[in-house]
């Protein structure tokens, strides 16, 4: 700023521009159980990795111990299960905490995991003020897109503020939360929505911190400085890099104007990235390698707005779980970009670009308008409770799907140039999903029982009573929560105690009132079939749509529900986090013609068994057909069909009306039996 620039100066390596450091290359890891994950972390660290990015399994994320019914199909599937401090000690066995930068993708139970981490450090005699790391802890995006929330919005924000307050005083290098726009884009957010909703989340948290009035001015500035972001980058990379520049400028303005932060260091927009997985295709999957490269450009090209850490998906993510080789291929892309090119040698290469500047200005204006609109509505919490943000996302997603079906948005290999030679890369891929052997899951449960057997029950009871009283009387819950960790309280007990105090929350689904604008021959065919059905049976086909299990990625289910209404069905949309019994009970009470379920966590085999058992118990297995959607590897199809699944839809089936047509056929087949 204020620096005179020579109009035609050409930068070269000898200019006094310090070379930028490469961003951090991350791997998100954790699976099976604490023993297997500890081994994995230690081998990664031995290779020179300095940070850990810990993936927890869904029961841990949703606040259930591994022996809870809803937890069983999910133990160790998408991450490591943590039931108590004993698990934590094994997970970090022989890993020096004071040297680690530990990032935990944890939200609903973030306070619990932080408490476990601190209790572990204290038991090991590590100075907790040295602890470095991040708890993701962005509940607003959980309500909107990811689904691992537990408590109502006000209570969730209170937990976040408790953690900021505790961390600033006790673990000053810990990021109590990480604002995520990543999942918003996966749920359909436009760049403007991504900017607006993520910054609204940050404002919601900072406002709540201000309201508590627990920091002096200097402390509050440092607290603002601890806010970091986790962002997405899609295929429209010019717009994406403009978005990142807009983020930086908007954050600087918000922290200056709304919060009066004077030190520019604390106004810097610090962010990590995972590039978009949603746009990766199951069709001609080799093209995804190029897509990942292009998506990387958006977050690395601008020095002014370059990411601090980057995670890349693997080219075959839409097919199955990537092999180590697939992950290595993505890592190599980052290394080639950072070390073979001259990118890091230059200052910002877009400074002064009229096109980029006007694009940034446009994004900023629209995003600020949206932020102000939400603030006028009463802020982030209100916009969650009223469903405003969620409806906006579902609506953007419906538009995206419509454009895809109409061919207005070209996706190579999916809706254009669909004929191609078979990829030799796919041939050797195992095509499987990650399997956790029953023994490994049992070991987790045995350890849990062991902890329960040897702990001091009276200490557990009084620790939980303390937690309840802190929750009810509004004092900071961290101290009580850390004592729970030390007393060997379990993940389920900690969560149940707070469920009792705060209640559980089921946010608006955003699907109501959504409309599609798809008009196609297939739609005409489906509607004609629906009309014939009505004429014959005197009612509209009825379908229940829901997600059993703990996986909260609801886009697919939402789109099917909206599409079914568009086709002329009466759709009962039941949302996420349901047990097999919930779904079967709804199907019986609603007397539906078909059950539609969606699963992405890889637990489909176990959950489908539960569902059919439940239908069988109610003598309805032969009468109500079940269709399945989600990330389902092709090798699993045959077994699933044998179990009784009538149709399986994967991301390849993007034409919603073709899906509806097939569902209508399933219904008619059943009726004619």
């Amino acid at each position, binding site marked *: 700023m204020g620096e005179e620039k020579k109009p035609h100066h050409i930068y070269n390596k000898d200019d006094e521009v310090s070379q930028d450091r490469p961003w951090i290359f991350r791997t998100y890891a954790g699976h099976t159980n604490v023993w297997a994950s500890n081994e994995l972390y230690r081998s990664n660290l031995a290779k020179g990795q300095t940070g850990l990015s810990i993936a927890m399994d869904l029961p841990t994320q949703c606040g259930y111990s591994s022996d809870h019914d809803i937890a069983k199909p999910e133990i160790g599937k998408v991450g490591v299960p943590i039931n108590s401090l004993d698990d934590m000690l094994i997970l970090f066995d022989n890993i020096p905490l004071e040297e680690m930068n530990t990032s935990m993708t944890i939200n609903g139970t973030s306070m619990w995991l932080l408490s476990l981490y601190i209790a572990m450090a204290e038991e090991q005699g590590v100075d907790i003020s040295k602890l470095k790391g991040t708890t993701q802890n962005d509940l607003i995006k959980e309500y909107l897109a990811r689904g691992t929330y537990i408590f*109502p919005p006000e209570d969730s924000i209170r937990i976040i503020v408790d953690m900021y307050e505790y961390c600033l005083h006790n673990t000053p290098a810990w990021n109590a939360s990480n604002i995520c726009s990543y999942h918003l884009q996966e749920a359909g957010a436009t760049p403007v929505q991504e900017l607006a909703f993520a910054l609204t989340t940050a404002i919601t948290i900072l406002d709540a911190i201000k309201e508590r009035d627990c920091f002096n001015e200097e402390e509050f500035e440092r607290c603002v400085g601890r806010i970091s972001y986790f962002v997405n980058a899609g295929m429209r990379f010019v717009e994406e890099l403009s978005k990142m520049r807009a983020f930086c400028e908007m954050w600087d303005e918000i922290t200056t104007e709304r919060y009066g932060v004077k030190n520019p260091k604390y106004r810097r927009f610090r962010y990590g990235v995972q590039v978009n997985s949603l746009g990766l295709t199951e069709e001609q999957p080799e093209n995804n390698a190029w897509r990942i490269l292009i998506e990387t450009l958006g977050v690395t090209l601008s020095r002014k707005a370059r990411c601090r850490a980057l995670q890349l998906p693997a080219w075959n993510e839409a097919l199955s779980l990537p092999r180590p080789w697939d992950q290595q291929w993505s890592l190599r892309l980052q290394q080639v970009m950072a070390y073979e090119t001259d990118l890091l040698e230059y200052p910002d290469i877009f400074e002064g670009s009229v096109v980029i500047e006007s694009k940034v200005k446009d994004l900023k204006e629209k995003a600020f308008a949206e932020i102000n609109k939400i603030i006028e509505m009463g802020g982030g919490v209100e916009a969650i409770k009223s469903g405003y943000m969620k409806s906006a996302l579902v609506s953007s997603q419906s538009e995206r799907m419509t454009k895809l079906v109409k061919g207005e948005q070209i996706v190579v290999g999916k809706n254009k140039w669909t004929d191609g030679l078979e990829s030799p890369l796919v041939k050797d891929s195992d095509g499987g999903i990650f399997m956790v052997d029953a023994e490994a899951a049992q070991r987790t449960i045995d350890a849990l029982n062991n902890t329960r057997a040897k702990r001091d029950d009276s200490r557990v009871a009084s620790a939980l009573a303390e937690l309840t009283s802190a929750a009810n009387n509004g004092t900071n819950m961290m101290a009580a929560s850390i004592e729970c960790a030390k007393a060997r309280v379990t993940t389920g007990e900690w969560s149940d105690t707070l469920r009792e105090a705060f209640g559980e929350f089921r946010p608006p689904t955003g699907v109501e009132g959504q409309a599609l604008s798809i008009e196609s021959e297939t739609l005409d065919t489906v509607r004609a079939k629906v009309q014939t059905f009505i004429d014959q049976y*005197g009612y509209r086909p009825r379908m229940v749509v829901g997600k059993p299990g703990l996986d909260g990625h609801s886009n697919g289910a939402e789109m099917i529900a909206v599409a079914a209404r568009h086709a002329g069905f009466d759709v009962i949309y039941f949302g996420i986090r349901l047990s097999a019994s919930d779904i079967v009970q709804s199907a019986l009470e609603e007397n539906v013609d078909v059950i539609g379920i969606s699963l992405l966590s890889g637990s489909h085999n176990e959950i489908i068994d539960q569902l059919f058992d439940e239908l069988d118990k*109610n003598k309805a297995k032969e009468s109500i057909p079940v269709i399945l959607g989600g990330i389902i590897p092709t090798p699993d199809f045959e077994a699933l069909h044998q179990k009784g699944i009538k149709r399986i839809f994967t991301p390849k089936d993007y034409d919603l009306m073709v899906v509806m047509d097939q569902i209508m056929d399933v219904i008619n087949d059943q009726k004619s039996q």
Partner: protein
Amino acid sequence: MIKSHNNVTSSSEALLQQMQSALPEELVQLIDQAKAHEKWPVARLISIFERHTEANLIARHQIINHLNQQPGQLNKTGMVLGITGTPGAGKSSLIGELCLSLLKNSTDISIAVLAIDPSSHVSGGALLGDRTRTLFPINDNRLFFRSQASQLDLGGMSKQTFHVTRLLRKLFDIIIIETVGIGQSEIEVQRLSDHTCLVMQPLAGDQVQFMKAGIMEVPDTFIINKCDEESLAKKSLHLLKSSLKLASIHLDHKESKPKEIFLTSATKRLGIDTLSDFVFSQAKEIVNQTFLQTQEDYFLVKSIKQEYGEFGFNVYTELSKQENKFQGTLEEKELQFAGEISKYIKKP
């Protein structure tokens, strides 16, 4: 031959005759299971009362007849509680908490919830999302939940809903009907409810709008939900009372049925038990049989108007002056009338 939107194509005489045949054994069984509140049997019976085919028309008559003939205590008439209100007032969550409280406070109570959402004007389909807000207990037969589309194209929500309440009254102690928004169809809810509640948000600035629309006179009871804080609750109560006063609606207990106001918070579980005690006491009152008769007449006339217009209505008014002209169940009356009016309509 009559071809109507009810898909009735046979002659009304033939149908009337078929109605007199004995109730098929599988329906007898289904009714027995439904009497024990088994989920799927109840659901399948409801479908019979919702669907528009000749077979269902006949079955409806037979089922109602069968249920009416049950002796004494088995022949119950549950109370219908209509719950309506603006979108966003938190009706679904409130009903969820209300049901849980009713179940907790009485072991032998049975409740059916019928949640109605609008159908799309474009596709005719509907997205019924009320199940998402509360997770009800599994396998507790005392509580039954059903979603229903307003089905604009198939004869209006209230007729189909009315049919279902005829059935549910015979099976459950309390039938809760939930409708969205404030409009014509919500005033219709009052016609099929013994008691109507209006759920509002605290300090909703649109109270004046309600009064203009004459809506404030509809409900028997007002519920201000989302009263998460006491000061907010008090302020809202005051505002509602003064709004009612402005609309000349009195809350004093000299009236035969005074209007009550409840303050609740579904999320904080405040005021729920008081509300559930009130609902429970209402359910104990014996349902007024004259009211039920008036209700049935209203829906009969409504469907006649829908199918045959003003002309049909005039014919009906004229014919019903003759004593005992139309007799039996609603289905019988409809067919008796169809037979009469066919004399006036040219065959195609």
